[in-house]
């Protein structure tokens, strides 16, 4: 057998937290508008079908933002044909074309998981007057 394949090249290593920070800083950050839980947003998401690329819009209420730094995500909930749909978007995903903030909501907590149990008029969120 060709010895090339068995060639072992090695290095001894350590894992450290500040190294993770360095790698996170290399991720290009999306410049999104500021929004938080309770806001209604439209996410313009790039979808690749074969070689074609198109943009899909997804509108709903932000029910949580979680994580920090380059790995932060947000969850958008909408009710489609009376079925609740939630999508989790990484904030810095290169597939996010843009995010539009449609309205600001008045809510008293950062995580709106209680919306999952509510339907109809109860599931409304009061809009903030700007």
């Amino acid at each position, binding site marked *: 057998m060709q010895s090339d394949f068995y060639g072992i090249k*090695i*290095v*001894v290593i*350590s*894992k450290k937290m500040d190294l*993770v920070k360095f790698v996170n800083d290399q*991720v290009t950050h999306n410049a999104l508008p500021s929004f938080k839980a309770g806001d209604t947003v439209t996410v313009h998401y790039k979808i690749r079908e074969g070689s074609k690329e198109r943009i899909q819009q997804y509108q709903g209420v932000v029910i949580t933002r979680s994580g920090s730094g380059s*790995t932060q995500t947000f969850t958008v909930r909408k009710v489609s044909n009376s079925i609740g749909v939630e999508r989790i978007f990484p904030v810095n995903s290169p597939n996010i074309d843009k995010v539009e903030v449609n309205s600001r909501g008045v809510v008293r907590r950062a995580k709106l998981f209680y919306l999952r149990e509510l339907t109809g008029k109860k599931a409304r969120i009061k809009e903030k007057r700007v």
Partner: protein
Amino acid sequence: MTSVYSAEGKNIPCTVIEAGPCVVTQVRTVDNDGYAAVQLAYDEKKEKNTSKPMKGHFAKASTTPKRKLVEFKGFEAEKNLGDVVSVDLFSEGDFVDVVGTSKGKGFQGVVKRHGFAGVGGQTHGQHNRLRAPGSLGASSWPSKVFKGMRMAGRMGGDRVKIQNLEILKVYPEQNLLVVSGSIPGAKGSYVILEK
């Protein structure tokens, strides 16, 4: 662990590894030692914490004291004493095996340690034996428990090799590798990379 995005925009979980620079501190040859290998040293260590014999060993390679010494067989290129081996051995898209010591889990039962299914239902008269190991074997013959019977005990802290992890990024200036997926061991532990 953290995550990076691929060219297609996929979010890939990954681990950051500081790989090198390592110094060649000993070269084993077939004539001398009966086998060919290269000893690499990594991570600085204080001189006052180094024994005299080890100080001499590092002085031979004209380098500072190092914390970890590991021998590697099958290097393609010939190495001499004092040579520096760094992260540029690796390139993006390569696949590597990572060897490390897994995290200690303490004394664990058979369900966690050996993947036993436990006792199924809560019915059929069963109570308080949900995670029990069951029978250890037959009775009068063989009148013993066979060696290697899987039972509860210490778990973790073993040498583990994870194969075929893809190298996603290489940062030569920082000596950093970004490898897809998780690797054995706690944060800050030492691992061996094999290509």
